[in-house]
Every structure is written in structure tokens, then in C-alpha cells.
């Protein structure tokens, strides 16, 4: 036991002192916090530049219907040749030129926007929205309804569903599907990456020890099993330390960031930028929408976020990371023991990485129905449960399922590390050949 501890200690100290570890550990929270805060920050960004859009209305019907806003100034030009203005937009100081031409349909004018560069989305939207509204109003007026203004004012409705999660005890908590989804995405992707990366680091470590023949020296004082588990647990302790630093730093940074933004956002919500983001990436959109609704609807997203059971989430992440990592690291260590060169590992690691990749595919569809049979079964299978259970966790998982999944995972880990140790024990002393899984499985039955 004392020796395993020595090996863990060596593994921990050498890895923690590496520059790459320090940099990744300290910089990642900045990155995570940025992900949390950036959408809100972008949303709060104020466009301070005033842009002037010239409008030439050849129909005469749409004069002065587009209002100026704080940052978009609308100038109607009369008795001017569109062609001349078009050619001299920059000199005239115009950001863009909107030409309104008539068509057969009075309600369907031909609209063309000329500009030297791609016009900003907020300008486009301002123009489109106001014109759309104007035409709609005109059409409505065409029906000659009495008291139209009053009716319109009355009809105007905004629906917002407040979703509350009810626990058995009848306690009501504000919840948000979008917040849950965002957390599920982030946690299961992070889990996938960390299990894969740290598992492979263990493999690379084993290969290094074998190829530079340190194994030969150490193996006379330590049992192969101790050497392998020491390495795996050493790496685990490094990763857990890293996660804890990440959680604390991210929480602190994001907390500060969100506080600052909240003060800013209270003043001015702008939707345009958010829509820009939404077009750029649909995933970001969900997180973004969460933020935008949060600002619009009195920060109820913040409430939903805070109502997530963070102790359970972080605890669940640590538990599933630990055992998911241990499970995969044991398999990666077995592969590492059978080769002398990292380039020889590709074929051997494929069967190991496959379940993880499958988990990510299942996660993407499972996130839509976290209690469905697909998500349920894959959160029980130990090779995918670390990822899929974390997808389900933010939506709430019955305790018995959590307990069952966790027990299966732990039991499988015990079995796999036992098998992996048998392969490792033979593998680290084998040189000069490329081995296949078939041969490695045979080693399990070798006598010590």
C-alpha cells in the first residue's frame, strides 16, 4: 500500500509541476467563464457608432415611415437620382442606401439596400421590422375595422411560461429547460473530453515507462498491479485537483462577470446581437436565449440556474468522472503495456474509444428526452453512463436509477481493472512485437 502511495505521489508531483498542467489549469476557467459570460456580454455590448441610412422612396407611399433610432439615423432623400447617391455613398457619409420601388402589389414594394460593405444585422432588422409592421398595419386598416387602434392595443399579448419543478414534498422551484440543457451539454461534453484525454495520458505514460525501460527497474521492487493502479490513481488525483480548481475559479469568475453584466443589462437589452449569435451557432443560441430571456423576464433564468442542485451536479460529475476515468484508464493502461510506440496504439484503442463516441451521439438525441428509454439504458451501461448520466442529471434523475447506474459502474470498474492488470503484467515485459487484442486477451490466463 505504501508503495502504491509512493507511485501516486511521484505521478502527481511530476504532472502537477509541468508547465502545461499549470497553464491549462489556470487558463481553462477563464475560458469556461468566458463561455458563461460572453453571450451576455455580447448582448450587452452597445453599438456606439451612429450610422446614417439614406432612403429614396420612388413609390411616395413610404415616406417618413421608418423612424431613426439612437444609432441608426434615417434620412429621406427627395428629388435625387438614386444612381448618383449609390456611387458616392462613402463621400456623402451614408452607411447604406435603401431604395423603395413600386410593384404591381401596393403592399409589396421592391426593397433594395445598397451599401459598400455587408450591412450590419441590426440595421437590416430595423429596416425590415419597421416596414413589415407598417405594411401589416396598412393592410389591417384596409379592412376598415372600427376602433382598430384600441383593438390592436388590446390584442397585443406576451406569453411567458414560468416553469416550476415540484418535489415530492410539494416544494416549488423555478426551473428552466434551457438552463438544464445548457448544463447537460457542457457537463457531458466536458466529461467525454476529460475521460478520453486523461485516459490516453495514462496510456502514453505506460508506453513511456515501457519504451525507456524504467519498468524493468521498478518491477523488481513493485508488483505490476501496484505500478498500474498507482499510475492510474496518481493521474486521477491530478485530474480531480484540476476539476476542483476549475469549479472554484469558474464559479468565482462567472459570478463576478454576471454581476457586472446584470448591472449593465438592467439599462439596455439589445436583441439584435443575440440574433446574430443565434444564426452563427444554434447551440450557442440556446444558452443565449436563456440569457436573453433572463434579462427580459426579470432574471428568472438566474433563479433557475441557482435552483439547480449544484452539490448534486458537482458531486455527480466528480463521481462519474472518477469511475468513468478509472474504467477507461485501466483499459488504456492495458493497451499501453502491449506496445512500445504510440503509433502502434491506434488499432488497439479504437474498441475503447468507440463506446465514448457512441455516448456523445446518444447524448445529442438523449438530451431532448432525458427520461426516454434511450437515455435510460445508456445511463445504465457502464461504458456510456459517465457521459449520459450527466446529460440526464440536470433534468433530475430518480434516486434508484442513480444508485443502480453508479453501482454498475463501480462493479464494472473492479472487474475491468482486474482484467487489465493481468494483461499489463504480461504486456510490460513483452518486447519486439505488435500485439493484437486477441493475443492480449490470452494473457489474462497466463500464470503470474
Amino acid at each position: 500500500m505504501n508503495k502504491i502511495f509512493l507511485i501516486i505521489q511521484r505521478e502527481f508531483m511530476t504532472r502537477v509541476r509541468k508547465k502545461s498542467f499549470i497553464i491549462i489549469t489556470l487558463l481553462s476557467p477563464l475560458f469556461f467563464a468566458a463561455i458563461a459570460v460572453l453571450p451576455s456580454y455580447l448582448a450587452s455590448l452597445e453599438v456606439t457608432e451612429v450610422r446614417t441610412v439614406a432612403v429614396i422612396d420612388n413609390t411616395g407611399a413610404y415616406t417618413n415611415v421608418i423612424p431613426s433610432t439612437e444609432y441608426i439615423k434615417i434620412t429621406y432623400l427627395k428629388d435625387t437620382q438614386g444612381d448618383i447617391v449609390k456611387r458616392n455613398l462613402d463621400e456623402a457619409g451614408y452607411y447604406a442606401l435603401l431604395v423603395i420601388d413600386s410593384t404591381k402589389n401596393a403592399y409589396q414594394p421592391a426593397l433594395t439596400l445598397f451599401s459598400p460593405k455587408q450591412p450590419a444585422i441590426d440595421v437590416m432588422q430595423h429596416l425590415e421590422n419597421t416596414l413589415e409592421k407598417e405594411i401589416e398595419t396598412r393592410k389591417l386598416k384596409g379592412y376598415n375595422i372600427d376602433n382598430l387602434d384600441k383593438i390592436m392595443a388590446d390584442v397585443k399579448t406576451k406569453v411567458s411560461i414560468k416553469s416550476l419543478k415540484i418535489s415530492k414534498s410539494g416544494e416549488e422551484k423555478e426551473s428552466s429547460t434551457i438552463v438544464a440543457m445548457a448544463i447537460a451539454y457542457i457537463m457531458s461534453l466536458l466529461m467525454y473530453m476529460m475521460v478520453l484525454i486523461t485516459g490516453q495520458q495514462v496510456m502514453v505514460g505506460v508506453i513511456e515507462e515501457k519504451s525507456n525501460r524504467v519498468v524493468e527497474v521498478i518491477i523488481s521492487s513493485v508488483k505490476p498491479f501496484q505500478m498500474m493502479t498507482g499510475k492510474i490513481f496518481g493521474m486521477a488525483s491530478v485530474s480531480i485537483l484540476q476539476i476542483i480548481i476549475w469549479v472554484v475559479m469558474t464559479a468565482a469568475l462567472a459570478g463576478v462577470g454576471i454581476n457586472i453584466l446584470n448591472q449593465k443589462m438592467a439599462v439596455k437589452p439589445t436583441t439584435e446581437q443575440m440574433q446574430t449569435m443565434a444564426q452563427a451557432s444554434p447551440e450557442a443560441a440556446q444558452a443565449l436565449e436563456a440569457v436573453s430571456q433572463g434579462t427580459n423576464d426579470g432574471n428568472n433564468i438566474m433563479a433557475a440556474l441557482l435552483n439547480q442542485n449544484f452539490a448534486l451536479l458537482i458531486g455527480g460529475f466528480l463521481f462519474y468522472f472518477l469511475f468513468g476515468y478509472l474504467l477507461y484508464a485501466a483499459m488504456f493502461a492495458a493497451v499501453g503495456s502491449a506496445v512500445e510506440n504510440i503509433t502502434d496504439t491506434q488499432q488497439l484503442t479504437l474498441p475503447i474509444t468507440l463506446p465514448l463516441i457512441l455516448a456523445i451521439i446518444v447524448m445529442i438525441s438523449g438530451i431532448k428526452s432525458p427520461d426516454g428509454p434511450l437515455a435510460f439504458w445508456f445511463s445504465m451501461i457502464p461504458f456510456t453512463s459517465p457521459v449520459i448520466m450527466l446529460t440526464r442529471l440536470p433534468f433530475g434523475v430518480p434516486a434508484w436509477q442513480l444508485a443502480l447506474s453508479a453501482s454498475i459502474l463501480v462493479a464494472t470498474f473492479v472487474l475491468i481493472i482486474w482484467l487489465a492488470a493481468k494483461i499489463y503484467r504480461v504486456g510490460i515485459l513483452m518486447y519486439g512485437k505488435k500485439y493484437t487484442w486477441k493475443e492480449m486477451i490470452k494473457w489474462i490466463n497466463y500464470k503470474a
Partner: protein
Amino acid sequence: MYLIETKGIEKHYSNHLALDDVSIKVPQGSIYGLLGPNGAGKTTLIRIINQITGPDKGEVLFDGHPLKPNDIYRIGYLPEERGLYKKMKVGEQALFLAQLKGLSRAEALKRLKYWFERFEIQAWWNKKIEELSKGMAQKVQFLVTIIHEPELLIFDEPFSGFDPINVQLVKDEILALKRKGTTIIFSTHNMASVEELCDHITLINKSRNILSGQIDEVRQSYGSNVFEISFRGEPAALQQSLDGKFDLLNIDTENSLPKAQVRLNTQLESNKLLQAIIPVVDIVSFNPIVPSMHDIFIQVVQEYNQKHGATNN
């Protein structure tokens, strides 16, 4: 008193027999040479003694009792294929390896300090292994092998990678350890160093122990009773005096001092030989020619292979 005794060790690998009924007895305080061609099974035997792997049959006695896990603290092993963590600092690494051999941190530190001074390598303490030359790394490796002062040391090709000065340093250390009572198993292909250092040898070939014994006795027994006589006088006269009674192999007359090599039927005939030649020439020297370990190795292995077929299994 034997420190290590193996009895009828047998070890199979998936498709060949690595050791077949190998028994050796390593006397306490001796240097025991483990010889044999590549792939003969020496490393497997060493690994069994180190409990890296177990025998399929037979047993190993250490200090009179069957080998048990804690015995590894009393054994030091320098493998032939050896390496250290390249990115780790020399001092830290030595400390780690010493602690794995059961030393407390404080004790390990104290002893390492002593040895680093003795080997004059204090300046390396904070260097990484990758900054050292191969010979330097070997020195560190030798040092951590003996740091826990084990009763049994197993050296597999300990001199590889060393320059002559460091070979001498390591040789001296090995002899010093022997004087302190340490038992040493020494595996090498360098027959000159076997003759120089070993008290006993075992020759393993094709998984079997084909020759064991005290090195002088082995060499004597393979001595072909050839004596070399250098003399003053007429070579022809000498030749005549031997005629018919002794087998004259060669007579070298090119030097001012002629040398004749004569084979006797038994060693006990040396006096008769002398009696025969004393009247005709002046004898300057009379020496038995003992075969070198090198010659014995080649002779024994070749004879065995001829008798048992060229291929194993």
C-alpha cells in the same frame, strides 16, 4: 551456506520452454556468474529470483526459506535493459527508487548523499536524466541498485555503457560489496570479467543448466593437460627426448627462448615429463595452460548443441 538455491525450476511461455529443470546454488558471499548465449533463459531465471514472474515448477529458497514477497527488500537488481524517467531530476528519481526499496525518506536521503559524494556526482542532483550522458545515467542506476544495501545483488551486464575508468570504478565497488559479505549474481557475456570477478559459474544453454561449479575447478577440468615449457637448448634434443612418450603439440623456435607445448595423458605425469627433459635442456618456465572461460563457453555450448540438435524444441 547458500543464499539462493533454485530447485528444478521450470518455466513455460506460450510456445516455448524458457527454463527446464534448472537448479543452481549460490554460496553466501560469493560472486556467481550466470553465463549463457542470448535467449538461453538467464533473464527468466533472474526474473524468477526477483519475483517478477513465478516458476511453473520447482522452488526458490532464499536464505534457507522459500522466497516470500518481503525478500525483495533484501535483493537489488540491475537489469540489462534499464532506464530512468527522462524528465525527472536525478536526485528525486534516486529518492523515489530508494523509497520503493523500503528505505524511509530520511534514510534514503542520507545514504544518497553519501554515495553521490563518493561517486563525485553531487552536481547532478538537480539535473534531469535527459541532460546526462548514457554512462552518467548508468552510474546513477548502479547507485540506486545498491542503495538499500541488499544481501543479494543481481547485475545483468553491469559494465555496458561505461568507459574503462568507470568500469574499473564499478568493478572496485562490486569487490568492495563482496568483501562486506554481499552475495552477487553476475550475468554477462564478457568472459574476461567473469574470470576476474566470479567464484562460481553456471552456464545455461537452451533452457538447461549445462555446466556449474567453482570457476577454478571448471577451468581445470576443461584443461586439456597441456603444459608450456620455455627452455634454453636445442629444440631438436627436446623433441628427441619426448619421442614416443609425450605428445608434442607445437614447438616455437622463433624467439630467443624456444617454447614447447606438450600434452600429458593425466596431470600427474608432469614430473615424468620434467624428468625426461631436464637432462637435455635448461628449463626456464613450466606452466599448465588453463583454457579461458571464453574457450570453455564456446566449446561446451557447441558440444551441447551438436548432441541435442541445433534447434531448441
